[in-house]
């Protein structure tokens, strides 16, 4: 009598643990389902081609315009700007901390950079409004300082903890014998670093940049507060722009639930979800390569 009961109990427990274990799959699936479900009205009523190629995002004009291009361009502009700033800073700092800094200094630098990862994005945005925006306004003599550049600068710093910590891990994972071999051949320490260590760590560095990129593309509050929120087609970092994330955050509160505008915001949320999902998959590919080495 006791044994079947115990067996049944262990069966239930195994099921219970399994259900918790696959929570990540359940949640990702639910997110996808509900983004599709809520954007269904939009895709059914608004021509898909006009959504993809439309150059105006004007949800309150008559007729409403839901062109993805200005938002996608805004996100791209801010992201490219941020990566251009984050790349030299992040990889440079990772090389310094991982390869050159004395041990004691390294132990001080690492927690300081970790702290940066925990500062809330709304605080970063606020600091940006107070310090960076006026600085940009005066140094470029612009009418307003709320520009793509302001967002790019702050986002770059927000992505640094990710880029630095993962790049540094990759640099540390390079076998010491590589360095010894290079030094024995007469290379200087710096030549060893940039001709041997950095190339050997390159897939980890690429992974770190992809993860940083994912963070930048998905960041909302900082860009909402700093980039001026103007959904127009511009090609300059010194102009106000509107990203996909900021559009959702700014407009969702003011829409009629179940309406076309409401639904369109889930549609661009779906686009954002797919973009970041893709970026993370690519990052994971490169991360996998480090583990295999």
């Amino acid at each position, binding site marked *: 009598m006791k044994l079947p009961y115990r067996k049944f109990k262990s069966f239930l427990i195994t099921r219970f643990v399994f259900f918790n274990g696959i929570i990540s799959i359940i949640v*990702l699936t639910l997110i996808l389902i509900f983004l599709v479900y809520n954007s269904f009205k939009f895709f059914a009523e608004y021509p898909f081609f006009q959504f993809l190629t439309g150059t105006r995002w004007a949800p309150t004009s008559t007729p409403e315009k839901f062109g993805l291009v200005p938002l996608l361009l805004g996100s791209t502009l801010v992201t490219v700007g941020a990566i251009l700033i984050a790349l030299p800073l992040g990889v*440079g700092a990772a090389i310094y901390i991982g390869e050159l800094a004395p041990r004691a200094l390294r132990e001080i*630098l690492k927690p300081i*950079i970790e702290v940066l990862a925990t500062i809330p994005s709304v*605080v970063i945005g606020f600091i940006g409004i107070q310090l960076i925006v006026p600085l940009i306004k005066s140094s470029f003599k612009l009418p307003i300082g709320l520009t793509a550049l302001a967002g790019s600068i702050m986002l770059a710093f927000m992505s640094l903890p990710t880029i630095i910590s993962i790049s540094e891990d990759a640099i540390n994972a390079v076998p010491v014998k590589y360095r010894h071999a290079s030094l024995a051949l007469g290379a200087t320490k*710096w030549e060893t670093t940039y001709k041997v260590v950095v190339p050997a760590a390159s897939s980890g560095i690429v992974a770190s940049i992809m993860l940083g990129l994912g963070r930048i593309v998905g960041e909302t509050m900082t860009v909402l507060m700093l980039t001026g929120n103007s959904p127009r087609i511009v090609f300059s970092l010194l102009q106000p722009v509107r990203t996909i994330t900021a559009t959702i955050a700014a407009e*969702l509160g003011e829409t009629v639930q179940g309406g076309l505008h409401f639904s369109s915001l889930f549609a661009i949320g779906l686009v954002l979800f797919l973009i970041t999902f893709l970026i993370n998959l690519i990052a*994971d590919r490169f991360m996998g390569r480090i583990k295999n080495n």
Partner: protein
Amino acid sequence: MKKRYATQKFFYILLLIITMIVVAFVLGIIFYLVFKGARAISWNFIFKFPSNGMREGGILPAIIGTIYLMVGTIIFALPIGIFAAVYLNEYAARNKFTRIVRLSIVNMAGVPSIVYGLFGLGFFVLFLRLGKSILSGSLTLALMVLPIIITSTEEALKAVPDTLRHASLALGASKWQTVLKVVLPQALPGIITGSVIGIGRAAGETAPIIFTVAVFSTPGLPKSIFDQAMALPYHLYILATQVTNPPKDFQWGTALVLLVLVLFFSVTGSIIRVRQRLKKKETT
């Protein structure tokens, strides 16, 4: 040869400067916030309700709202996160399916916070009809911090030596008893680390709560989990962008309170983690 060493020197200095720029940015933000915010902090600021359209009074309801959200988040995220980690480390086979589970945890961590906000609105607020409430907000934030708790717990479970599991099983305990009474207590510091870092993260997030719980102002403190609430990050966002001419001190003060709250949790988590690592080094 001289030239090669000169090149080396040049790049060493360049990289040092780059690193110092990053460090200066972090320390600069923190010191500036403390410097500017400290002037605003007073008994009234912390313990009074806002009045006159956020231009007078204090931020008490935003602090309380954020504390409710932190508690709610951890209540939902902790049990699921722990058992998800138990599954991965104790039950799952090393096969393709488990690899997909791990990949989806990484991907979950990469989902933008605003997408969690959209999902929270679509699923908890509208579909499950929980409304814009502390409950919806906590559930949304819980999903967001799950990957942090799972990863941290799993790392701790991995560090529990197999000899302990074998001893327990040899004494006739079932696998489940072993997990609950032997493995999990050993992994407690790692679980606490993940929880504390997760709570800190939940406290600072804005995008997931805008549509699921946060409101501009409330008449009193929330009375049940089905009430809307104010929250510090949303309050700062409102003060910084929506209120016309708020007192500067109020903005800086709110930012400082939020930063201190978040840093308190993340630093505590890091300290526990570092201590554990040092201990492990001593024993091995």
